[in-house]
């Protein structure tokens, strides 16, 4: 498996463009379908994400994150912008908060999750169910914090605190990965 496809894109390897689409297309498509309800919106979003990715490939630093996480971060930036733009509201969504799973996350088979996602999962598993559920709604479903508060009957400040602390926990785990700590060892 080629470890440096983004660096190849940035350095001028024309073959890397199609390879990059094939490597990360399914991932970006999956993220878009998670955050945007309508397929046509997701298709448009994927196009915007890849244009952004072509521009950002040169900023990829393997010392900070894996290519997969970097691509997911670029995708999320664009998807959040689009999400805000179209002002989708969870009231439009077919799924209710009660139907959302809160069990331990599952890993994808096709997408290369690697250690970073495993670390994130380890951090998530250390959170209380309520915290994990809030983070799941905020990160995976893209629900605004106020909506999460309304749906779960929690104060907005509590929701924001759960999101903040959850992300800090995951960040600490990822920092531990860079240092070579054992999973779950972050404070």
């Amino acid at each position, binding site marked *: 498996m080629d470890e440096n496809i983004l660096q190849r894109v940035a350095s001028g390897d024309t073959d890397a463009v199609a390879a990059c*689409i094939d490597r990360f297309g399914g991932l970006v498509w999956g993220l878009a379908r998670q955050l945007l309800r309508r397929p046509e919106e997701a298709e448009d979003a994927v196009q915007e994400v890849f244009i952004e990715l072509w521009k950002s490939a040169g900023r990829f630093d393997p010392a900070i994150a894996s290519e997969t996480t970097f691509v997911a971060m670029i995708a*999320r930036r664009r998807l959040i912008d689009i999400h805000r*733009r179209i002002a989708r509201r969870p009231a439009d969504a077919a799924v209710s908060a009660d139907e959302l799973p809160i069990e331990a996350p*599952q890993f*994808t088979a096709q997408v290369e999750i690697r250690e*970073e996602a495993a670390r994130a999962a380890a951090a998530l598993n250390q959170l209380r169910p309520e915290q994990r559920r809030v983070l799941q709604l905020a990160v995976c479903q893209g*629900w605004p914090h106020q909506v999460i508060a309304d749906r779960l009957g929690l104060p907005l400040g509590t929701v924001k605190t759960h999101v903040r602390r959850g*992300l800090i926990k995951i960040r600490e785990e990822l920092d531990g990965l860079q240092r070579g700590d054992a999973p779950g060892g972050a404070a």
Partner: protein
Amino acid sequence: MSQAFDGSREHLLQLMADHATEGLDAPAMRVMSDLLVDHPECQPVGFELAAAAAQLAMMPAEALTLPGKLRDRLLTDAGRHFAASAGRAAGAPDRAIRNDDPVVSLRGRRVGWAHFLAAASLLVAVAGWWQVVRLTRSAPEPLTMQYAGFIRETADIVYIPWVGKESDYRNVTGEAVWSPSQQKGYMRFAGLTPNDRTKAQYQLWIVDSTRDKHPIDGGVFDVGAVGEVIVPIDPKLAVDHPAAFAVTLEKPGGVVVSDGPLLVVGTVPG
């Protein structure tokens, strides 16, 4: 370490968490930028990477497969992007484009991978297209990206929310964002009634308290469909002390002096 310092750091951490999950509006983005000056050890990208890793961890077991037609479009997009970056003639973006217009236009012009290869081959014959790409990365960005980048990167941004003044415009939302130092900005509207450009066009006016009684002409723009619109602000005269931004509906091409009603107005804070 003072309580105020700790408090501002907590505020910054919360803004970074908000940014990584639900995004920030322009005023909040400005606050985050200001706080980052005092807390350079805090990096928003850390939260963004954490959120990305969390989403990867929580994705379904079966990854989705990219639809074939979408893959084709991405290849076409890539060809167009890199070819444009390589210095091929690129027209200026329309003055007013619906948010989804760039994508719509991409869909409507399926040039195809063969076109990309042909363009690339031509460039290779000249100087090696990737080398050219690296020297002249100047492709015009979609307005949505320009707008987001402007908000992210402009230090002296002023945020001016719209207020609908006429009955048909009460539901208009959005804002103007303006940089005094750059003398440029953008307007974002949601809910602005579409216009028939052969009969009437929207016109922007900028009230500058230091100028004469007439506001500065900010140019005309169109709204092609119901939805959000992003319009660059590029006044022909210097705007020294903007007090308000206002929109009227005028005859095609606009007018020099307007006597029409102000449809939506944004008052500059402070």
